[in-house]
């Protein structure tokens, strides 16, 4: 069930569109922002709200990589694996994360603190390698900086 706050927020988001279904992606993102990820139950809630079937909603949800259909940690680190970051050594950052938190791309730490996901070029190529944690972007990330950066994300 959507909470009243959620419902109000979603209704607001739909105002920009001529019909409900056009807001599907916005609604998914908003629900995800509150709930962390999109569970089967969230799919049902959204489907009901948008007067669509869960198939309609999930078809859209599973297309987009920023919509999580599996639970993620409290924080999500998006590690850019595109070309400029690859040249500049993103793989070392990935190794560092692996060493330090025992998780590879696509995994979540056991304590639920962090999920690391690969991401397409973050548009920070002049500061490669780049990483985004939650909504904050870090450039010129080197393995030795990882720990300091992560301090903010408990």
């Amino acid at each position: 069930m959507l909470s009243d706050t959620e419902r109000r927020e979603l209704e607001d988001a739909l105002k920009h569109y001529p019909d409900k279904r056009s807001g599907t992606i916005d609604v998914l993102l908003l629900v995800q922002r509150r709930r962390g990820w999109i569970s089967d139950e969230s799919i049902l809630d959204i489907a009901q709200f948008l007067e669509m079937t869960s198939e309609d909603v999930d078809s859209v949800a599973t297309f987009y990589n920023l919509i999580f259909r599996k639970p993620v940690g409290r924080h999500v680190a998006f590690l850019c694996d595109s070309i400029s970051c690859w040249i500049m050594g993103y793989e070392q950052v990935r190794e560092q994360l692996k060493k330090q938190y025992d998780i590879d791309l696509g995994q979540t730490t056991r304590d639920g603190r962090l999920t690391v996901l690969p991401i397409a070029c973050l548009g920070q190529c002049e500061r490669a390698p780049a990483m985004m944690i939650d909504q904050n972007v870090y450039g010129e990330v080197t393995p030795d900086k990882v720990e300091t950066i992560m301090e903010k994300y408990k």
Partner: protein
Amino acid sequence: MSQDPTRITMERPLTQYIHPDGTPRLLREYVTNGGYHSLQKLVTGMAPKDVQRLVGESGLRGRGGGGFPTGSKWSFVPMGPDAQKPKYIVANADEMEPGTFKDRILMEGDPHGLVEGMIMAGYALDAEVGYIFLRGEYHLSAQRLTRAIAEAYAEGYLGKPLPGTTFRFDLHLHSSAGRYICGEETALINALEGKRATPRAKPPYPQTVGLWGQPTIVQNVETLYNLPHIVNHGSAWYHSLSRTQDGGTKIYGVSGRVTRPGWWELPLGTTAREVLEQHAGGMLAGVHFRGVLPGGISTAFMTEEHLDLPMDFSSIPPQVGRLGTGTMIVLDDHTCPVGFVLNLERFFARESCGWCTPCREGLPWVARLLQSFEEGRATNDDLALLDMHTKWLAPGHTFCGLAPGAMAPLQSALQFFHDDFERHIGLGRCPWSNKPAQLRVLV
């Protein structure tokens, strides 16, 4: 500040006021420096068709990678009292082309420029609603655009008839949920409609059947930033900015192992050598240049011999490649070209929308083949398979431009770095990797 803020003799109209410290220009500052002045021009009786003509004359070409002349793109939009309404202007702010970050620089530094550009495009095409389709990862741009839009509403640039006209423009921001294919304009339209972002067949073009079936213009962010300046200063001035027949400046960027990776707004037609050597400061000490992708990863490699070509939409011969987004990625001699292309093809395979067969099935195959080169398991047959893909994943063979774009760097790499591919086969490992050669395993 000069007395007449609009009398600018600047060489960098798009970026000259962007703060070097990364803070955005807010409304007040924007206006003081001549912002939203283009809208006042409309009071002088500039009709939509005048704006259209001016943009046509200016030689503005789309900055989204295709370089399509903006004026002629607009000419397909139905105009006049009988035209289908509403019409839409969509800013393509999806910027997911790896190596590309120019739109972000503009939106973060100068969000009002996009708002003004969109209002102008809206006025020119008599389209009263705009959407900014922003990639989901650009949170900072989202914040700044949201604020700019709110300011523009408060000042009456949005949501009210423009002075001296009956035209009123509304603008909304849509944050996307990922996927590179959303940058393709028809896929973008599907995404804005809340659907899966698979591209649409053309014709019909969005100009007649676009967003929600209505006439729609999708324009790259950088393209839109040019509009107010063209309206303010005219097409002759605009041409004078450029070194070639296409008007204006271009935001060039460089990433990779160069001394000063970054971006610069330079006259259109600046050569790659100038950008790389003068602005990016040349290669880092100890590494050597081998090649460059001139504008994102959907372009073909240029090598030393091409560096003196003007970087514009008409000077690069088609057999060499194309400008793309103008943000360059440099390949150096410490980097394996096969590994480089493998990274690109993995990206394309992952970002394929899955609609058409050659792209959906071909790209993962290509990526696996390249992987087997890197692992030292490739054979000459695999080279033939790569060639086959470069031949078949050509424009028109696939549904949209993603797969052909994916083949551009591969094909040129096979051409320029053929020896490196063969060395992988011969050595049974990657020459750049000190990992031991893997056993040849039949899979």
